[in-house]
């Protein structure tokens, strides 16, 4: 359980030579199958952290090791979902979910022969997130919450070892958000993978994560690491418990402290 999956060793990054560092001296260790949440003020470098993790950007200083290998160039073991669902409007929900299988090996080369099998797999995910019956609809026929569900399916269909989520529930109403928390919780419990979730919502971070990292405002540094020891499986009810509120408060204080400094 303690084997490291993602290792950041004193990582610094600036986007261009004249700019300041976007993140500074970030050192993190993430275990395999760990659920990590990253919180912090806007512009502190959370999305930057994700780009570094997935190899979309090389660090300026320091090393990043993912799955035992130093990151150089985009990894192929990740699934990503963002605040905007970014579905392709000319594809149905099902075809949108299938997109990664048309790109990632070994699925890509088997795509023709195993299409039906892949469709079954996609449909299973689609049912899990509560989109059954909508698979042949186009994105514009879906509500924002439904599109986001489809986007999460797309991020998971190729069974990535690493799931990156950048404020995926940010644009949703409170009820849908809590429902999707549970969907994500169940997906993670059922078929474990490593998750890095970027969020503004401390309750969301506390409810879902094993470990929460708090980042300081620009230039981003990790200022706190908090293990969430609430027992699993967690029910939505847990968010009303005292232990839960205490953790949220504690995280809140770290953020508050950043503001003042």
């Amino acid at each position: 359980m303690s084997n490291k999956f993602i290792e950041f060793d004193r990582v610094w990054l600036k986007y261009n030579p004249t700019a300041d560092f976007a993140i500074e001296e970030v050192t993190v260790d993430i275990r395999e199958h760990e659920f990590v949440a990253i919180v912090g003020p806007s512009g502190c470098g959370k999305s930057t952290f994700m780009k570094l993790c997935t190899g979309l950007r090389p660090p300026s200083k320091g090393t990043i090791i993912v799955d035992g290998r130093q990151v150089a160039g985009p990894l192929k073991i990740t699934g990503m979902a963002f605040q905007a669902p970014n579905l392709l409007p000319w594809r149905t929900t099902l075809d949108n979910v299938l997109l990664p299988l048309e790109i990632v090996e070994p699925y890509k080369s088997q795509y023709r022969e195993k299409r039906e099998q892949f469709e079954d797999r996609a449909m299973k995910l689609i049912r899990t997130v509560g989109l059954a019956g909508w698979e042949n609809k186009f994105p514009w026929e879906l509500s924002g919450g439904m599109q986001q569900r489809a986007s999460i399916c797309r991020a998971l269909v190729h069974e990535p070892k690493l799931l990156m989520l950048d404020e995926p529930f940010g644009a949703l109403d409170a009820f849908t958000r809590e429902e999707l928390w549970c969907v994500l919780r169940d997906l993670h419990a059922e078929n474990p993978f490593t998750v890095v979730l970027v969020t503004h919502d401390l309750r969301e971070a506390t409810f879902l994560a094993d470990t929460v990292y708090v980042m300081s405002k620009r230039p981003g540094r990790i200022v706190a690491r908090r293990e969430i020891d609430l027992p699993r499986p967690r029910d939505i009810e847990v968010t009303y418990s005292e232990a839960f509120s205490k953790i949220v408060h504690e995280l809140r204080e770290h953020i508050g402290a950043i503001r003042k400094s």
Partner: protein
Amino acid sequence: MTKSFVEKHAPALLVIAILLLWELICRGFKVDPFVLPMPSAIWDSLLEFKKPIFDHALQTFWTTMVGFAVAVLVGIILGCLLGSSALVYRACYPLLVGFNSIPKAAFVPILVVWFGIGTTPAIVTAFLISFFPIVVNVATGLATLEPELEDVLRALGASRVEILRKVGLPRSMPFFFASLKVAITLAFVGTVVSEISASNAGIGYLMMSASSSLKTPLMFAGVIVISIMAMAMYEVFAWIEMRMTGWAHRGQQATA
């Protein structure tokens, strides 16, 4: 019921009204038919010269289609190059804009020196005048890809070509088909402009020779034939656009 009939056929009714008014004015004020022939006289000359008009129209049509086909091909290739590389875009764009601002009629004499009088300069003019909107639209469609979507695909290990094929090209289809409508009408302009001064076939040539033999109704007949052809092709491409990229229009309706 009568109201919906009027609404439905408003454009056709307007055309008929204009033709009637035109006919009446010409008759009423006894306008010299040499200056402005009556619609009925134009119709007569259309019938009288239907064989040569048809032949010349066919010539113009094929010339335009060949020039347009080359424009589509070059437009897609250049558009892909410009749209998928910021460097190429920056390097080529000012040049293209500069080129586009040259009146294409100015090329015709040069083309005559290179290719002689005939179909070739007309094809080249039709191409030159119509490829620009295609390039710009394809490039815009490709260049405005959402960065997050690109990240999703790159994080899956998609190559540039794959991103282009799976997302870039389908995404730029609405832009592309919209540009075809504009380009096809421009292509007709190019062909006729070239035919007027550097050809001995085609509607442009027909009008030129009608002009020198003072057959004004025939000239007007030529104008009508060319505008009907251009309009018909515009409609064809508008129809193709609707068929191919319905998702874009329905998507807009849904979000609007």
